[in-house]
């Protein structure tokens, strides 16, 4: 009797942390197939490109019905990281009888959260998504090599962020849904790189017009897998 009670008292969250019943999958893809980090992809131009790092924040993940939120994910900020398969599958438990016709979130971290001090979990600066020369979270970090990138070692480093006007990168995204129980979002990085001009813009590490534009392009490469 004593031991189970003690365990229960020590870990009072255990009964709540049940297996999620639904998952939202994020799948970065290149040319229609799952992105493999470090693999070179041939491009139509004859060039080639590889991605070594692809990480981004999403905030306020929620399901909508007729434009009204019917479910809000309990974790307000989620770090999605290509190198961490666990982060690509976001679990949640939808209450019974919920009808949803759309999914919404913001790409990046909202300005209220940005203005706070040190935070933990997905927002811990240990994750390498907080700028150290200036306060602020990076919305999306995309690094790799491209044969047409003129930087040293053909390396491109896109650290896209900024939360103060006029360079606020927070990007609201909404997707229509057929089935809220199984949502699969694909991020077509090949489409992103046809917009991003790595010949001219290959090192972005501060808020500005380039970061705002690139985040919008990244957002437009998100889509629901049919």
């Amino acid at each position: 009797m004593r031991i189970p009670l003690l365990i229960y008292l020590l870990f009072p969250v255990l009964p709540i942390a049940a297996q999620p019943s639904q998952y939202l999958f994020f799948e970065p893809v290149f040319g229609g197939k799952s992105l493999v980090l470090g693999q070179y992809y041939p491009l139509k131009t004859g060039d080639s490109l590889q991605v070594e790092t692809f990480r981004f924040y999403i905030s306020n993940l929620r399901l909508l019905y007729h434009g009204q939120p019917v479910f809000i994910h309990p974790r307000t900020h989620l770090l999605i990281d290509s190198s961490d398969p666990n982060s690509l599958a976001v679990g949640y438990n939808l209450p019974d009888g919920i009808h949803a016709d759309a999914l919404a979130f913001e790409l990046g971290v909202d300005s209220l959260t940005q203005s706070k001090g040190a935070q933990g979990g997905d927002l811990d600066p240990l994750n390498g998504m907080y700028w150290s020369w200036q306060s602020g979270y990076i919305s999306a970090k995309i690094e790799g090599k491209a044969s047409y990138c003129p930087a040293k070692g053909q390396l491109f480093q896109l650290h896209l962020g900024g939360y103060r006007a006029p360079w606020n990168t927070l990007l609201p995204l909404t997707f229509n849904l057929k089935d809220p129980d199984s949502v699969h979002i694909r991020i077509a990085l090949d489409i992103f790189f046809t917009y991003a001009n790595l010949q001219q813009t290959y090192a972005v590490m501060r808020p500005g017009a380039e970061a705002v534009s690139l985040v919008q392009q990244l957002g437009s490469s998100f889509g629901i897998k049919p």
Partner: protein
Amino acid sequence: MRMALLLGLLLAMAMSQPCGDLVRLIYPDYFPQPVYPFSDNPLRTPGILLGRTLFYDPLLSLDNTISCASCHAPYNAFAHTDHALSHGIGDSIGLRNAPALINLAWQPAFMWDGAIHHLDMQALTPIESPTEMGEEIRQVVQKLAATPYYPALFQRAFGDTAITGERLLKALAQFQLTLVSANSDYDRMRQGTYTFTHQENQGYTLVKHHCAPCHPEPLFSHYGYSSNGLPIDTLLQDAGRYRMTGIPSDSLLFKVPTLRNLKYSYPYMHDGRFKNLRQVLDHYSSGVQPSATLKKNLPLTPEEKADILAFLRTLNDSSFVFNPDFQFPKSLLPE
């Protein structure tokens, strides 16, 4: 049974809660309310001690040679005496003068250009700057976890031995928040236990007239951004806040430092180009490059400069500089 239940409850509380008595920041009633959000990071004795230990520990740097205190020494009012520009690992030299750390709970932004908006996040900059500590916070956390003493210090401060970036930064902020200087002759004058000399009074009047637009009492800074009237250093090419915002009108604006404890925090200005206060006053009376935030030289006679220097001496607080609670902690001494 009851024993086990009580023990379990206590353990459960200890595991998730920061420990130790709350510490209230003590400051005079003529100070404004601090701007630091203490509700997000309440001061507690074990957290302050952990922060103080980290502050003095060179383990925070890439080659374990540079601590926060290397450039922010207590006897220099937590500035770096005699060094115009900050120092870092491998004898590297930074861009700016290491500022004195005084009354940080009242500062809304940090660094000479205001790049950092919160005291918690400030320590990240010197830790990761290649010309300061040159380390990654991720590595710092691993190094701390491998020591025999830090896990216990984190447990005492935060309830368990986990060492995270959040806890590291919050503990450093807790110690720095305690660096309150409010026990100078000026403060005693405000509290009615000291009477200014005639010259100090003359200087007080002059400072209120000429300096207060940027250096208002009782903190002796408005902590906004102003021109200091200095021409740009052609080698450093430091345009101040403009580097951060890219707004042309921010060119050559720097965060206004406090006038407290100047005796200990020389050299002066953002690049430490003046070794003594006489040079600073000479600059403000005859060397100012006019700008929107500092339009012309301050018309000061030699007698008035002497009066101002007499007043500035009343802002020195030796009890702050020699406070034993701020010095190198015993927790870092080998057992």
